[in-house]
């Protein structure tokens, strides 16, 4: 696909998303809202997995904690303020990411995967086994937060069309923010860390600090997604923090093609549509999801983006992201050829 066609495709997609609520009915508008929320969630994880090379299997911790914060912050009888609850949720997720990041970033590779999963499960048990927030049943948000700008209410969060546009705006803003981050010197450093952390350290970068900042940004953005999701459903439960949530979002990133800004968008949309299809077919729909995941891992290691013919360098809407991703994909396979390099000195 040439550069021009990609731009046209992007514009068509944006136009479709903008006019969609005018055509679709309530169910479909809410379904696309859910997919857009997952786009935000998957994009935040992509910053870690796709760009920094940190495979986190506990990303749902930040998604879920933000949901719990808004649910606990909302008074029972009346609505919470939108801005204050949003700031608290995202800030809380960022703070948690900082705490967990300080611990898990001391490990790397396979330890990192296990430690992130274990800490997310710790939160799961905290909310599941204790009565702080309704235990395994979770808690309800009786009144959705009210968005006011100086007394004026421009958006009614209970209106599904209004909410759709709010989520769409947030999703677009997150993708633009990530684009800015990745094109900044900071973005170049984190991509450098993924390709060769050792070399980045010897050049003089404090890689731990860079990774921690990345982890916190990703946690805060996952918190944003969790906040939106909690507000949409009006209920939070421990499943939000569970590892199926973490696994599912990781799957979205990889299915779409990690290390590209478009990847999580494609991944979130295709996985959720696929799951919706499976759910309509059988009670045991997770069996089909599992088979798809196995097949993707075996045959589509670069995701759906890998199906497209390789783009010539300097082409595409995201030059830095796209080309460095494919470069690192090949360098990854080279370095892990044979017995994984890390294993040899480990064993």
């Amino acid at each position, binding site marked *: 696909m040439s550069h021009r066609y990609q731009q046209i495709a992007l514009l068509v997609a944006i136009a479709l998303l903008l006019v969609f609520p005018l055509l679709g009915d309530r169910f479909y508008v809410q379904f696309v809202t859910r997919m857009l929320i997952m786009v935000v969630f998957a994009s935040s994880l992509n910053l870690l997995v796709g760009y920094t090379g940190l*495979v986190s299997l506990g990303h749902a911790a930040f998604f879920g904690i933000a949901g719990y914060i808004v649910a606990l912050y909302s008074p029972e009888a009346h609505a919470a303020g939108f801005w204050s609850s949003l700031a608290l949720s995202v800030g809380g997720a960022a703070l948690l990411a900082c705490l967990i990041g300080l611990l898990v970033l001391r490990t790397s590779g396979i330890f990192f995967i296990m430690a992130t999963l274990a800490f997310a499960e710790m939160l799961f048990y905290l909310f599941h086994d204790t009565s702080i927030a309704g235990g395994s049943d979770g808690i309800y948000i009786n009144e959705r937060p009210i968005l006011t700008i100086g007394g004026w209410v421009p958006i009614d969060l209970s209106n599904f069309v209004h909410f759709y546009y709010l989520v769409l705006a947030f999703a677009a803003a997150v993708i633009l923010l990530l684009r800015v981050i990745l094109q900044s010197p900071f973005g170049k450093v984190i991509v450098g860390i993924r390709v060769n952390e050792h070399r980045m350290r010897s050049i003089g970068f404090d890689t731990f600090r860079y990774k921690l900042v990345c982890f916190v940004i990703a946690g805060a953005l996952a918190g944003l997604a969790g906040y939106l999701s909690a507000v949409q459903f009006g209920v939070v439960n421990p499943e939000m923090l569970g590892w199926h949530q973490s696994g599912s979002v990781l799957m979205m990133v990889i299915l779409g093609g990690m290390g590209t800004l478009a990847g999580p968008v494609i991944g979130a949309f295709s996985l959720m549509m696929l799951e919706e299809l499976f759910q309509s077919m059988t009670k045991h729909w997770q069996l089909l999801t599992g088979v798809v995941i196995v097949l993707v891992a075996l045959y589509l290691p670069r995701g759906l983006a890998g199906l497209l013919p390789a783009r010539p360098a300097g082409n595409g809407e995201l030059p830095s992201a796209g080309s460095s991703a494919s470069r690192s994909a090949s360098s990854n396979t080279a370095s892990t050829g044979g017995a994984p390099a890390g294993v040899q000195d480990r064993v």
Partner: protein
Amino acid sequence: MDPTIFLIQLLNGVQYGLLLFLVASGLTLIFGIMGVINLAHGSFYMVGAYLAWSLTQALGSFWLALAAGIVLSVVLGMLLEWLFIRHLYRRDHLQQVLLTYGLILVFSELRSILWGDDVHGVAVPAMLSGSIALTETLAYPVYRFWLSAICVLLAGLMYYLIQHTRLGMMIRAGATNREMTQSLGIDIGLLYRFVFAFGVALAAFAGMIAAPVSSVFPGMGNQVLILCFVVVVIGGLGSVKGALAAALLIGLIDTFGKVVEFELAGFQVLPELAGMSVFVMMAIVLLWRPEGLFSRRLR
């Protein structure tokens, strides 16, 4: 705390720790030797427990079920290695995580289709159903002693197999340098298939012998997997010795955490929070020795 209750909890903790060790050592062996992170490892524990339940009913004897279950789990392990895992040796961890995560979903749904979602119990075999009197008033089930003894025996056998047999030598060589071992004429593919099947059988066997003391329920695999991860992070990956020490530690912390209520800085610490204690332990180890308590050595 009452000394007899303390003794009972101590025995329970050690027994739980030894069981965790069986599962975690399979995980750590598969990673240490083959370089594969296997998220589906907990599923094998769950499959083992369900096998013990259904085979005991079908064959009428726990012992026959155990024997048949071991054979089945080895076959399952070989099949999975041949179908999926062997494609992962040259891939990075991300694809290993993804594929084995997919397998968890598949196993969990297959279990639901084959055996349903109910909680089951397996009777303790008649031979081991008695109790041993510890004090005048207190007795401890023979089955739990037997379970601990089997775990210790298996740990010893594993050590002997890896350290003192020709097969163990080949496994260690394969872990150190795959290409070199292969060029010496050792069929590394077959060796890895054996190691993977052995790991699967260990986890399934742990599930089978755990079935009579815990109930057989759908979420048991994931629960044990998370604890195994904690064990491996604390003990150091690829270290069987570390896995043993960490598993005992986690077994004891988890068991005592559930029975001890204490006050901390004026707050009554809820017994429900006991589930968190093992993770706090992990956080401490990560702060103190991020590479794990034991060096990452297999020997």
